[in-house]
Each structure stands twice: as structure tokens, then as C-alpha cells.
């Protein structure tokens, strides 16, 4: 099989309620690079990510990790390789920051194994990396949206993964925290697949971008190649101008005719 390294989807399909949600998607992550997934609401980003993590079963096609079908991997082995940060995951259980991050060690511990130095070190390192080292004992329900997102990322890091999958990690964050989360993800140097809404952030932080439209991958490649006015018009139904931003990144400028209001 091609793409024998890291995570790849080969002609993957998934349907729900008799509707095709993911319709023949083929894409591969590149090791230690960030692959961004963009697409309108309901285009299937979250669904595709869930298939890549084997949280749903593909109807046809295969998802491979280092060339092996992930359907054949024990769940626990998969969880040591690949971590997932959900779009919105919260809990009513009274957990502290530390409790949540410790959950990330679950796949590394057997049923009766006690908490050991390696576990503790992984948790400490993860919390430090997201800048929450001083917040160990803060209760989950008192955290802000951005802090929760960072705790989830720390939990994922405590899993010690090589592949990290994130579903809209910048959701609900102010611009400073959006930038800092994405900068953090870049610094990690892991193989990342991340669903994003902001085209400019995708252009700034992703090595490659995949564009989903009605369950199909309509483009995939370097931001400069993918982000064209034609594609954005076709997929998002908005008019844009593409300018050269700082550092050679593409900058997407939205064209709004204030006289006409809605451009459609």
C-alpha cells in the first residue's frame, strides 16, 4: 500500500441515516507536518476525523497507520500512537486539571498498575507544554473555554502520541489564544491533522490543506496552491481576493459589497 508511513485514508466512505457523509476520501498525513482540513459546516470534517481515529467504522475503504489497516489494531495500541482532541468534550464529573491530563496515561497502564514516575513525568511535561503547569488542582468546571482546550491538548500529549488529531481546537478562543494554540501545535512537531474554520489561520499554520465539500475531498496541497478564489467561491460560496501576506503566506481577504449586503 502507498503511504506506508503514518496515517492515511484510502477511498474511505461512511454513511449515516442512509446518507453518504464521507464519499470516497483519499488523503495521507505527512510525518511531522500539519495537515489542515477546511470546509463548510456539515462538509464532513468531524466525521472524517472520527474515521481516522476509528471512532466510527468505515463503510468501505481503509484507514492505515504505517501501512497497516487500523481496523486490525487493538484499541489500546492505537491509543498509544494516536491521540484525538474532540470538537467539544466536557464532563459533569468533578475532575481537576491534573485528573483530566492523567486520563491520557490510560492506554499506557494495565488494570492494576499503579501510578509511576514515567506517568507523572508525562503529565508534568504535557502541562508545562500547554502552559498550565501552575493549574494542577483547578477544577475542570471553573476553567475558561480556552483553558479547557489546552487541558484537552495536554491530555492528548500525555498519551505520548506520534499522531495528533484535533477537531477545531481554536473554537471559542480569542485571537491571541487561537494563535497560541496553533503555534503550540506547530512547536510539538508531531504528525497533525487539524480541522479549522479560519482560512487565514489554516494558511499560516498548515503545511498542507485539504478541502472537504459535501463529503468529498475537492483539493489537497500547499496552502498557496489550494487557496484560490475559484475554489473558495465553489466550496464556501463567498467572494475573496488572495493577497501575498507576510512571510510568503497567502492571505484571504473577504469581498463584501455593503450596498448589496448578502453577496448571493
Amino acid at each position, binding site marked *: 500500500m502507498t503511504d506506508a508511513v503514518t496515517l492515511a485514508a484510502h477511498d474511505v466512505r461512511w454513511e449515516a441515516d442512509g446518507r453518504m457523509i464521507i464519499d470516497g476520501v483519499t488523503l495521507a498525513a505527512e510525518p511531522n507536518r500539519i495537515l489542515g482540513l477546511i470546509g463548510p459546516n456539515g462538509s464532513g470534517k468531524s466525521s472524517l476525523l472520527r474515521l481516522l481515529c476509528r471512532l466510527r467504522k468505515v463503510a468501505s475503504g481503509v484507514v492505515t497507520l504505517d501501512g497497516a489497516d487500523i481496523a486490525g489494531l487493538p484499541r*489500546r495500541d492505537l491509543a498509544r500512537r494516536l491521540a484525538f482532541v474532540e470538537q467539544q468534550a466536557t464532563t459533569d464529573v468533578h475532575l481537576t486539571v491534573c*485528573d483530566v491530563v492523567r486520563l491520557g496515561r490510560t492506554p499506557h497502564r494495565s488494570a492494576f498498575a499503579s501510578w509511576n514516575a514515567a506517568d507523572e513525568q508525562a503529565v508534568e511535561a504535557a502541562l508545562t507544554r500547554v502552559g498550565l503547569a501552575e493549574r494542577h488542582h483547578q477544577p475542570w468546571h471553573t476553567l475558561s473555554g480556552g483553558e479547557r482546550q489546552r487541558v484537552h491538548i495536554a491530555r492528548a500529549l500525555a498519551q505520548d502520541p506520534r499522531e495528533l488529531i484535533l477537531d477545531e481546537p481554536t473554537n471559542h478562543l480569542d485571537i491571541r489564544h487561537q494563535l497560541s494554540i496553533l503555534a503550540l501545535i506547530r512547536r510539538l512537531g508531531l504528525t497533525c491533522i487539524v480541522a479549522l474554520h479560519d482560512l487565514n489561520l489554516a494558511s499560516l499554520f498548515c503545511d498542507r490543506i485539504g478541502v472537504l465539500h459535501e463529503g468529498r475531498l475537492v483539493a489537497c496541497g500547499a496552502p498557496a496552491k489550494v487557496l484560490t478564489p475559484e475554489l473558495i467561491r465553489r466550496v464556501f460560496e463567498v467572494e475573496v481576493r488572495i493577497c501575498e501576506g507576510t512571510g510568503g503566506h497567502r492571505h484571504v481577504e473577504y469581498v463584501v459589497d455593503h450596498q448589496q449586503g448578502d453577496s448571493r
Partner: protein
Amino acid sequence: MTHAAVSPNWPARIALALAALVALTLAVALAVTVGEMAIPLPVALRALGNGLFGLDLPVGAIQQGVIFDYRLSRALMAALCGGALAISGAILQALLRNPLAEPYLLGVSAGASTGAVCVMILGFGGATLGLSGGAFLGSVAALALVALLAAGAGGSSDRVILAGVAGSQLFNAATATIVTTLASAEQARGVMFWLLGNFGGVRWPDLWVATPVALIGFLICMINAKALDAFAFGVDAAASLGIAVARVRLVLLATTALLTATMVAIVGTIGFVGLVIPHAARFLVGPGHARLLPACLVIGGIFMILADILSRILVPQQILPIGIVTALFGAPAFALILYRARRSS
């Protein structure tokens, strides 16, 4: 910064386990000595020595019988039952992510009452089946129905809860129909009494069944303690942490159901314990299941023994149904815990 200890704190753990054991023993000792027939502690100890170790110490035959065959078996059964119900409640609350989940949610008690009524009033099974056998079969029938309903509806947490509610209503209606149309007033009273729970009929053979069931059930739950923690953020989060969600859910739902069905078959339906003790235990030891489940076992056991003592001595010449006592004293105690937790947070 004070982080949790890196190395497992074995001395502290052993001390805690010993303390729990001592507390349980004291509760049992209290249950054995307190009652309508006042029996001094030395006599009680001698009776225990005779019963447990086959000694031949001087004790009156009646006292020997009351202490060993009646009160001790009853106290131990209360401890097992309280522990089993509390653990079942804690697990269902975690699996279904619902703080109101309790052991009878899956139709176990409704099915048991239908089964018991079938034996008591319709005379099914005659002497071979007995009340407990009928109740157990009823529980299993109700569970099977609820499981079918839940699986057919997709198996998500809220569907399981709804299926449990529907199944319980159906079996409760069946019980009510049989009682109202066929039972004499005397029989109806008997059914009512049974439904509210009663340790009066407990004898040693019941313990030979309940003890292994409770211990094996507890062990299975402990093996899955870490997996239960991972359910905090839902099934997808648990799965992405490497938990075999479907298998863990099936094993734990079946285990709690059988634990509960066994207890209900022997002592009837005792409310409150399975719902509230897990919350009380969480306030004391936190949400981690490796500590929560043993805490539930001990607290539930002690609570039930104390409730049983109260049920025997509260109204002279009469035994209150245990289910009334657990709620009557448990509710204010829990209100106090809630109040203190609010102030401390």
C-alpha cells in the same frame, strides 16, 4: 506545589484498608449486640466463638441462635447488600454519565417484584422455586427486555435509561395488576412489606450465594476501574483513550445487573443506598474509581448495617421496612454532606 505522590503510597493504603475493616467489624459487632433481646457483649463474643470456630463456650441455646444464626448472618448480609448496591450505583452513574442513575434503573427491582408476586400469589413454581428464585427470574426477564429495548434503540446512554424506565413501568404495572385483582388483603400487605426490603428472612445459606457473587462482582468492577475513569468525557473520548467501549459497557452492565438482582432476590428492594452512597463516597475520596469503588463497598456496607439496626429498634415490637429507614436517615445525612460540600468548594 503539592502534587499527588508519585510512588503508590502503600503504608497509607494499608492503613486505610485496615481502618475500613475495623469500622466494618465494629458495625457488625454493634448489630450483633443491639436488639430486642439485650445480650451482653461477652455472651455475644462467646456465641461468635462457638459459631465461627466450633468452640464450646457456655452460652444459652436461644442466645446462641439469636446471635449466630439470626443477627450475625443478617448483619453480614446487610453489609454485602449495601456494598453491592453502592458499587452498582457508582458504576451506572459513570457508564451512563447520569448522576441520577441507580441500580434499579435497568428494571431489576420491577422484574423482581413481578417474579415474587407470581410465586406468592399465583403460586408459580411451588416450593421448589421459592420467593427468591421467583424474584431472581423476574429480574432476569426484566433485564433481558430492557437490554433488547436499549439495543434496538441504538444503545446510547439516554436510550438505555429510557428503556429501563419503560421496562420498569411495564413490570410494575404487571405486579400491580396481579396484586389488585388476585391478592387478598393479607397477601397485598405481605407483598408491600417484601417490596420495601427486609433482612428478617436472611439465613446462612443466603450468604453462601451472596458472598461469592458480591466478591466476584467487586473484582470485575475493580479490573475495570481505570476504564470507568475514561468515560468521564463520553464514549468517544473513552474509545480514543484505548478503552474497548462496547465490551467494557456490556461486562459492567451485566455485572451490576446480576449483583443487584441477587441482592433483590434475597432481601427485596432497598432504595436510596445505590443512588446516594456513591455521591457521598465521591465527596470523601474523589471521582477516581480505583478508590471510589472500595469506598462504596465499605460505606454502603456500614450504612446498611446501621440502617438495619435502626429498623429493628426504632419501633418497639415491630420491624420497620429497611427501605424506609435508609431514606429516612440517609436523606438528611446526604443533605448535610451536600451543604458542607457547597461551603468548602
